[in-house]
């Protein structure tokens, strides 16, 4: 899925416009990841290969990004407005994610890992 299409889907979910696809996601496990300068909590998550999940991303302080190129995820979010993104892990391994919205002194070190077993 191209990033623009993914962003549209994310925006649709974030604004409460639940279509059939989004409704299906409600049945999937939602993993909440909270960002704040300069860390994600949790910074590491473990997923099961082939099992879809929904990541719910929010930030406590400033605008943040969540960039996970292995899953073609590139989303931005601001305080007070969580976004959700659906993810189907297709390969096992450990994959990095990072913040790609500059947020200050520790921005360069802000990231985490998605493990797929």
């Amino acid at each position: 899925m191209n990033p623009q299409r993914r962003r549209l889907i994310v925006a649709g979910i974030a604004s409460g416009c639940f279509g059939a696809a989004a409704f299906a996601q409600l049945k999937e496990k939602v993993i909440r990841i909270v960002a704040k300068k300069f860390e994600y909590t949790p910074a590491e998550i473990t997923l099961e290969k082939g099992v879809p999940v929904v990541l719910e991303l929010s930030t406590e302080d400033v605008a943040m990004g969540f960039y996970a190129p292995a899953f073609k995820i590139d989303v931005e979010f601001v305080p007070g407005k969580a976004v959700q993104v659906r993810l189907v892990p297709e390969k096992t391994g450990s994959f990095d994610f990072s913040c790609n919205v500059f947020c200050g002194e520790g921005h360069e070190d802000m990231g985490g890992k998605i493990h797929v077993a």
Partner: protein
Amino acid sequence: MTKTIDRREFLRLAGVGGAVFASGLAGCAGMAGAMKDDFYFVQLSDTHWGFKGAALNPDAGGTLQKAVASVNALSIQPDFIVFTGDLTHTTDDPKERRRRLAEFRDIVSALKNKNVRFMPGEHDASLDNGQAWKEFFGQSYYSFDHKGVHFIAVDNVSDPAARIGAPQLAWMKADLDKQANDAPIVVLAHRPLFDLMPQWDWATKDGAQAIEMLMPYRNVTVFYGHIHQEHHHMTGHIAHHSAKSLIFPLVAPGSKPKREPVPWDAAQPYKGLGFRSVETNAVKLTEYPVLKA
């Protein structure tokens, strides 16, 4: 042309052991086009004034001044000097940001050559969308002509998400529309316009649109900073050259699992730091260390 030969000879001899002749890059476009006269300019980048960290640079408070002195010591002065961003190190405190910008401006005011162009980096501009930076240095993107070469300074940092943005891209298109296809064009930016290492934040989200806009022009060269090291890359016929930093080097793209700085080497102080001159006739790059050996 005798003048040209003299300048090149000077640059070769004045390289103080660090000169690199880089015009042999495969496919490196020249700036010949409609250029009226040979000249050279100096690029300095990523000075990060205000950074503190002795393990990376125990002379963080003195490196910029030394670079200024080294540029002043060039016996033939460049036509102009450009700073390609991250003039200051980031701070959350708006007052402190302005203090650092003011100190930076005071230090570089010692440059003998007063024709100095400034650009923001994300450390200067991303936390307030360039507001403080503009108070000191004016417009964050602009173009100018010098002896037949058209220069375009692109701001890909005032948006913290590293976008040039639609309004600036529209401005760039209108600016380029006035140029002939064979016009010598130099693009200056802080971040790379191409996807060097997006996972290390070494990219511009809409940089591909800028590159696509530049493709019809046959003589385009891009100079940027951000990655704290020399790097050369081609997108089609367009050459992209990154500059060294004046605070600490970063590891080569993809050479480590994560982006990280290169620690200070006490046996070789200022190793990996420096500035460059760019001679326009054949896009000759000469790299200079901070201190003359």
